[in-house]
């Protein structure tokens, strides 16, 4: 009985091979709402509830697959989306390894990919890959600028022992060295660690003027709490992966004064009206918080949404060149994505060209500070 059930499943699998295409744009998404990247992935995925079902009257379908934050599964998903769902564009994923893995497939199958996390590939391998998040060096550059303005000479670093911790440290070094700021200690910790005492003690011995934390989400709070417990008085900086309300909930009073770079959407209301991103960001924040509750705004949902805005700006031109589901359409979509058109998103203004598949500038960075239990714009 059990055996025949298995056979039936097998047959069903063979039969459901083959997909539909036609006058409909299909966007394939892979992301991990479970596994180690779950806390970010859920936010990334939430944004899809805000996305419209048609662009220029052409229906648009989102196929969202779960990869459990595992690059192998992400690759499998990307293959499925391309081969079975005949998607016109890919979006994803949550972690650097997963995104790198699907970028390889996007290149191979000539499918435009809107990368929602940084990619560990050299630019010449990114012909079909368009990156949404601010490059980590851009963000950490803003942090270093702030350090400089406060005449800080030495910093200690403590970051996740994962690809995010690697990236933040690399970017920090990249900006700190020319600015004459010395990184006097580098430490690592894991999200599931129960204590970071050893690392913090070592940082305290090095007596840095400031500490930079390379964690993300609530995980970023642990080192700061430990630093304050041990009586560290200097400023503590975080990164753009840290900013959400749960960070403050977990950190409580200890994270008061924490500074982090972020996209404009986190503090959109406080921006001057002249800021080009303000209107789009405020609209997004309101729409998002209407569904997910006050204070639920976060950078990750913003990345998904900006990815959609990039596609939305490129799709009309691509529709003129070919029908969705055809290689011509995908080619035209890529060409339109790198046409140099300025797209205003919630994180910044994207001007993606043939030579620059990120296209963000200083308008994509603001510094925020925890003040009175909420993230506020850091006034210079």
């Amino acid at each position, binding site marked *: 009985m*059990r*055996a025949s059930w*298995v056979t039936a*499943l*097998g047959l*069903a*699998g*063979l039969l459901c*091979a*083959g997909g539909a295409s036609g006058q409909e744009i299909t966007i394939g998404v892979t992301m991990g*709402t*479970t*596994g*180690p990247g*779950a806390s970010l992935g*859920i936010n990334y*995925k939430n944004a899809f509830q805000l996305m419209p079902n048609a662009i220029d009257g052409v229906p648009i379908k989102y196929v969202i*697959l*779960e990869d*459990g*934050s*595992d*690059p*192998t599964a992400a*690759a*499998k998903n990307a*293959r*499925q989306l391309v*081969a*079975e769902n005949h998607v016109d564009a890919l979006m994803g994923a949550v*972690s*650097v*390894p997963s995104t*790198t*893995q699907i970028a*390889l497939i996007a290149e191979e199958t000539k499918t435009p990919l809107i990368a929602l996390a940084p990619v*560990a*590939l050299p630019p010449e*391998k990114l012909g079909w890959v368009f990156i949404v998040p601010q490059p980590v060096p851009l963000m950490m550059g803003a942090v270093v600028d702030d350090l400089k303005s406060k005449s800080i000479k030495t910093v200690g670093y403590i970051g996740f*022992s*994962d*690809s*995010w*911790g*690697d*990236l933040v440290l690399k970017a920090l070094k990249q900006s700190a060295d020319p600015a004459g700021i010395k990184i006097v200690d580098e430490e*690592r910790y894991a999200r599931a660690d129960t204590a970071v005492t050893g690392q913090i003690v070592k940082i305290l011995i090095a007596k840095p003027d400031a500490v930079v934390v390379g964690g993300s989400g609530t995980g970023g709070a642990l080192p700061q709490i430990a630093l304050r417990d041990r009586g560290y008085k200097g400023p503590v900086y975080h990164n753009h992966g840290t900013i959400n309300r749960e960070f403050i909930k977990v950190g409580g009073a200890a994270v008061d004064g924490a500074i982090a770079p972020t996209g404009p959407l986190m503090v959109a209301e406080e921006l001057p009206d002249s800021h080009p991103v303000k209107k789009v960001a405020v609209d997004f924040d309101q729409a998002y918080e209407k569904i997910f509750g006050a204070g639920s705004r976060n950078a990750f949902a913003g990345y998904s949404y900006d990815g959609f805005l990039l596609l939305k700006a490129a799709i009309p031109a691509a529709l003129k060149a070919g029908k969705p589901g055809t290689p011509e359409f995908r080619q035209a979509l890529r060409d339109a994505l790198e046409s140099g058109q300025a797209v205003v998103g919630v994180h910044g203004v994207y001007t993606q060209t043939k030579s620059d598949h990120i296209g963000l500038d200083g308008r994509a960075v603001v510094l925020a500070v925890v003040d009175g239990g909420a993230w506020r714009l850091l006034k210079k």
Partner: protein
Amino acid sequence: MKARLPPMIAIAAIAAAPLLLSDYYIILMNYIGLASLVALGLVLLTGVAGLTSFGQAAFVGLGAYATAVVTTRYGWSPWLGLAVGMTLTATAALFLGFITLRLSDQYLPLGTIAWGISIYFAFGNLVFLGEHSGIPGIPPLSLFGWTIDTGWRLYLVIWLVVLLALLAARNLLDSRIGRAIRTLNGHARMAESFGVDTGRLKIIVFVYSALLASLAGWLYAHFLRYVSPSPFGINAGIDYLFMAVIGGSGHIWGAVAGASILTLMREWLKDILPHLLGRNGNYEIIVFGLLVVLLLHRTSSGLMPFLVRMLPGGRLLRPVAAAPLPQRPRLARGETLLAIDRVSKSFGAIGAVRELSFELKAGGIVGLIGPNGAGKSTVFNLATGLLPVTAGSIMFRGQRIERLGSREIAELGIARTFQHPNLLADRSALENAAIGAHLRGEAGLIAASLRLERAEEARLRDEAARQLERVGLGANLHDAAGSLPLGSQRILEIARALCADPLLLLLDEPAAGLRHLEKQALAALLRDLRDDGVSILLVEHDMNFLMGLADRVLVMEFGRLIADGPPHAVQSDPAVLEAYLGVAA
């Protein structure tokens, strides 16, 4: 052996798949193929040898990272990457096996969990391994100028490797070494007493399974062209084990079944569950976990037996006659065979054997009797090296053996049966008997996998069949040992011992559970063996059985010898009567 048809159908289906399946399903099949290789290693390790590892994913990672570094950092050939990966894996597995496999069975899984976690963090923190972001840009494989970069080309390569690995595993299990591996699952003492080096064999099986995983890792790296730490973490290791368990860890095709079921179910659950439940959440994990629990509640042998049962079985024949194996030269009657001199054995404060001394001459049948707990089985265990003596010496043909292990003693020509039949219940009588002939063959794992040992194997199987026929089990060659009546199982134990070509045969209650006629047949067999030059020492309760058979009877009580002589003299010995009846005669 078993029906050849079903595997042929499976192979034909695999060959035809590229023509029938969509591109995506070809790619899925590639994933299944890679997982099958890893699961196959676990089938051998867990299902056959009764050991388990949660660290197989780490070996996959070792294979993948080795070739990634070799090809991207140094621009060497992927083949060199394979060699480096295999070498690293073998070294790591040897070391892990060495430190855990001497301990009891739960230490290998514990050790491999720790190993899997350590190596995951090591991959992620070493700069030359690309830290957590991994190593991109791994070149595709290339064979005779043919670049293997598209789905169906990879499919051909991966499945060719899988089929070859399955073939090698099948060959291996159907060989002398394969039978020895099966004994590792709870029969190590028995196997040792027939000369199987179980400690070494455990390590060999573990290394073999690790190498299969490493091979999968090599293919993985050139298939996905990018490696990063997360696919090689502890959860992936657990997944592989689940594949082997769900598919059926006792059957090599269970690896393919398990890998297919888990991979395909995950695909469909991924599509279906969000619609059913309408929420985010790791429901697949819950469903898989529940499935494994429910499955193991019903059977620990997975789904494969259900599949096999639906298939037609083939007709099984007696192995063809082959040149008989060489026999040990028989001893002259009356030569001193075994000399036990003031041997004692105590367990804590309890003396099971006390200052026991006796000698056995070649060419006789000697009975060893005594009430329960007299120490008879302990004497057998001391003489066969299963237990170390506390004091005294044991000589076999003039050589001291009390410090030797079971294996060395088996090599000298002592074979035994066990009081409780110690048989592989689900294997055929023929295979069980052939285990006895372990020391009469020498082909190893590689020869067996490549089928280079068929001539020797034919002689071993023929010998097993002849001994079974000799003891009267000729009609039951292919019956599972566990399905035989208890009496026949004891007889099968004798056939297995005879396959070892012993000079001295130690039989522990061979007649228990036999009917009258069967006992007569057994007595005839034992006489026949004696005439053939085999000396026999048997523990027996049934005095009447011994009376007509034994040349001499030894009586033990409380670990001491209380009588020694011809049966009728012993029967009327007052000390014996008192021991048995509790009355002074």
